[in-house]
């Protein structure tokens, strides 16, 4: 089983805080590598393991900090778009997680499916944020979309790779950690 029902509000808040901290720390760590981040994977896995609400919260909380204290600048419409877009990873992760990891098949198949989901979610995220960026800065939409292609490709390819390599081990690791925590407690 990989779906954990978090009853305690305190535990839920702690989980959101820890996972948000992991996202923010990794984001600042990779600040120089544009559009290549572990955040999307962590948010997706948060949703997958703990449900859509926790996943969406981690996504929004991360952007509340990272979007405000960002060396690339702050722009409210983009901030809102990225926050909503990021929460999508958590929500979709949560909805897929409702079926349990077993539903997705054997190890390699699961990883491939996660890579596909990661890629498509990132495509939607990039499309939405590029449209909002173009509109808010005043760049014509086709130009905004075309000039964003290299960054979108880097984002989507890296996320597909991260989801392929990292999603399953991260879900398993969190599962083992929670089981051990339960046994000790």
């Amino acid at each position, binding site marked *: 089983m990989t779906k954990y029902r978090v009853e305690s509000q305190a535990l839920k808040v702690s989980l959101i805080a820890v996972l948000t901290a992991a996202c923010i720390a990794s984001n600042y760590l990779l600040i120089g590598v544009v559009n290549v981040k572990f955040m999307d994977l962590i948010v997706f896995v948060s949703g997958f393991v703990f449900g859509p609400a926790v996943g969406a919260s981690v996504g929004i909380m991360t952007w509340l900090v990272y979007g405000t204290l960002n060396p690339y600048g702050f722009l409210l419409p983009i901030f809102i778009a990225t926050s909503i877009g990021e929460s999508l990873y958590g929500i979709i992760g949560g909805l897929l997680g409702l079926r349990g990891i077993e539903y997705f098949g054997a190890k390699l198949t699961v990883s*491939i499916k996660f890579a*596909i*989901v990661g890629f*498509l979610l990132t495509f939607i995220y990039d499309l939405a944020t590029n449209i909002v960026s173009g509109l808010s800065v005043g760049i014509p939409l086709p130009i905004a979309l*075309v000039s964003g*292609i*290299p960054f*979108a*490709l880097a984002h989507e390819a890296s996320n*597909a790779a991260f989801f392929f390599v990292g999603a399953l081990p991260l879900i398993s690791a969190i599962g083992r950690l929670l089981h051990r925590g339960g046994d000790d407690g």
Partner: protein
Amino acid sequence: MADRRNIWMWVSAALLCTTIIVSYMAINYQAQTIKLTANYEALKKDVESLTVKINMKIDYGGGDVVWFNNTRVPLDASLLTATQVLTDVEYKNSDFGAFITKINAVGGDANTFWLWYYYDVESHSWKNGETGSNAWVLHNGDIVAWSYTTF
């Protein structure tokens, strides 16, 4: 049955991913091509405004003739400058202007000299150079020649 549908759904999703990647690449390459073509055209325009196109014939003697057709040389270039752009030239200055002694290491033989000509489009004939090569300014479409001539 549901499993089969499920497999096809994931295969379709994977194909959608590859379609997105390929479309992105195609659009990106198209955008790059448009940008580079525009840059090339602008650069060509700049070069055209700073250069003239000439045709230069170099006759080394003994049937050895080389043509530089539709060749760009700097705007306001003299024949000497144009020849220096296109070949390896040795020359000395005299009271009559620059006197070329060697072109591409050919020259220096007794009673043999590098003389220059221009093609007169009105009379359709070659005319002897009237000045030193450094005093003859080239214009767009000019046809000039160097000939290694023995007297």
